[in-house]
């Protein structure tokens, strides 16, 4: 009996170690193969020019349209989601602090919405667009992506705001401030690092998602210059270039993927750095 248990434990331990290092190895392989493939065709021309005529048959040009398009789309929707999301997160944690059941219901709804796949948002955004008579455009893309990242934004802010000690808000009330002042002046400052992390997380999601912008943002070879015109996005640019039968264009898809991965890695590095740097001193009440 003793022996069997020992054997069982060691077998499982080996399996566990294998599983853990498998995950780390997969991450390594992904990063390595994206870099190895992408770095070869990555050039200054790629990231500083828009596609020239015949770009999709291997002629010159770059993906500046997609880079700028993705950045403006992600930036716009992050700002919009922040404008809607911050008050909701604050409201849950300042105004509804005593109504546990209601707060639980709202968090539950948010989690439910968070789980909805982005293609569903894309389809919904598309029918919304048709309803209000909007063409595929930057604006339609921003609206759809905003809906998609809102739950992420609110829930991650909420997770930080709920750690604000109750004593801090009591101190604020006792000095005569009302609830919205407490919310916007005390709570936001206390959890500024978490809020920035939430914003960067949403930004990363917004820039990487393709399924929700497929219907709504369209695609163009021009630089984005108006809210009402279609806009190119990096994920779609990768997708379209990869679908081409021409090897040079496929190589450019790898380079575009490298650009997108780098943007996301930089954003996540930033959010880590900022999280550490602006972490306010922990207050104990």
């Amino acid at each position, binding site marked *: 009996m003793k022996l069997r248990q020992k054997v069982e*434990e060691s077998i499982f331990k080996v399996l566990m170690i294998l599983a853990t290092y498998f995950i780390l190895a997969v991450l390594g392989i992904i990063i390595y193969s994206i870099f190895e493939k992408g770095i070869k065709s990555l050039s200054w021309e790629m990231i500083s020019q828009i596609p020239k005529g015949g770009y999709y048959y291997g002629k010159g040009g770059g993906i500046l349209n997609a880079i700028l398009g993705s950045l403006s789309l992600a930036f716009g929707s992050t700002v919009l989601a922040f404008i809607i999301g911050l008050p909701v997160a*604050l409201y849950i944690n300042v105004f509804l602090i005593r109504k546990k059941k209601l707060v639980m219901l709202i968090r539950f709804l948010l989690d439910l919405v968070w789980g909805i796949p982005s293609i569903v948002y894309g*389809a919904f955004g598309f029918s919304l667009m048709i309803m209000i008579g909007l063409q595929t455009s930057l604006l339609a893309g921003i609206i759809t992506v905003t809906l998609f990242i809102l739950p992420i934004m609110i829930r991650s802010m909420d997770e930080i705001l709920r750690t604000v000690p109750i004593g801090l808000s009591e101190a604020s009330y006792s000095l005569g401030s009302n609830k919205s002042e407490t919310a*916007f002046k005390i709570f936001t400052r206390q959890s500024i690092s978490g809020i920035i992390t939430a914003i960067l997380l949403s930004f990363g999601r917004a820039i990487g998602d393709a399924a929700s912008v497929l219907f709504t943002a369209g695609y163009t070879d021009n630089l984005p210059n108006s809210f009402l015109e279609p806009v190119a996005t990096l994920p779609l640019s990768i997708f379209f270039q990869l679908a081409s039968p021409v090897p040079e264009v496929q190589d450019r898809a790898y380079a575009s*993927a490298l650009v997108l*991965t780098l943007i*996301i890695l930089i954003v996540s590095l930033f959010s880590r750095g900022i999280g550490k740097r602006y972490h306010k001193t922990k207050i104990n009440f």
Partner: protein
Amino acid sequence: MYFLNRKQRHTVNYTWMIVSLLLIALMPFFLFLGLYLKSFYLLHDFSLSELLFSEVWKPSAGKFGFYPFIVGSIWVTLIAMLIAAPVCLLAAIYVTQYTRKYFLRIMHPAIDILAGIPSVVYGLWGILVIVPMISRYIGPFMGIKTMGYSILAAAIVLAIMIIPFILNIIIEIFRSIPVELKEASLSLGATQWQTIKKVMMRKALPGIIAALGFGLARAFGETMAVLMVVGNVVKLPKSVFDAGYTLPALIANNYGEMLSIPKYDSALMFAAFLLLIVSLFFNLVMHFFIERYNKY
């Protein structure tokens, strides 16, 4: 805002909060209603069982059978879960029970990076690595000729995509198990493995089920990565090496032509509606498992 006095500012802020909150709270209902109304044309003309279980997909002839897509989606999702679930569980136990604290500090960024990689990049990686691997090694090894673009390729890519998501939740669950429980078991003479197997696993089980359910819902709706490696052939898959088609891929592939064929847009919205229902259903059920975990 500083031209307003304190009370007015409070009113403005308060209204802003309430409006935003209502917008969020009503979003699932809007989504549900919007997609339902859009797919209503289709539901009006065909019966639900006809749509779900017919194999014939010929939009130009007015035949909409979603069965191949549903089967494709289920295959891909289940195989992905079969791969991801044991890996996540084993890794989570190892990381939380057998290693020191610093290891978690290495794992967390790794998980975050994996979770942050966009699905298009996963798809591209699948084409670069997984598809050739299947067509050159795994297929011939099993004695099957395959292109590589297959259910299996999609499932492997999908498994890797949802691993960080599931792993994160399971790690949190194991970390939230009270230490006293473990100590009590150890002090009664149980070995560490017995404690994990008989005490911790039992405590964590509802949480683990919930984590897997959330992962499953996420996998079911994943679009781009699957679309890029699954092969996109409308037929019932016979083996995992066959090419298939999934519901999200159907929507994403055909949005361009959907306005030119009658009822086609309604059919695609119906596919989105199905995805929405599956996702809401799984998240609802799994939420109750999490509740149970929190209770006991």
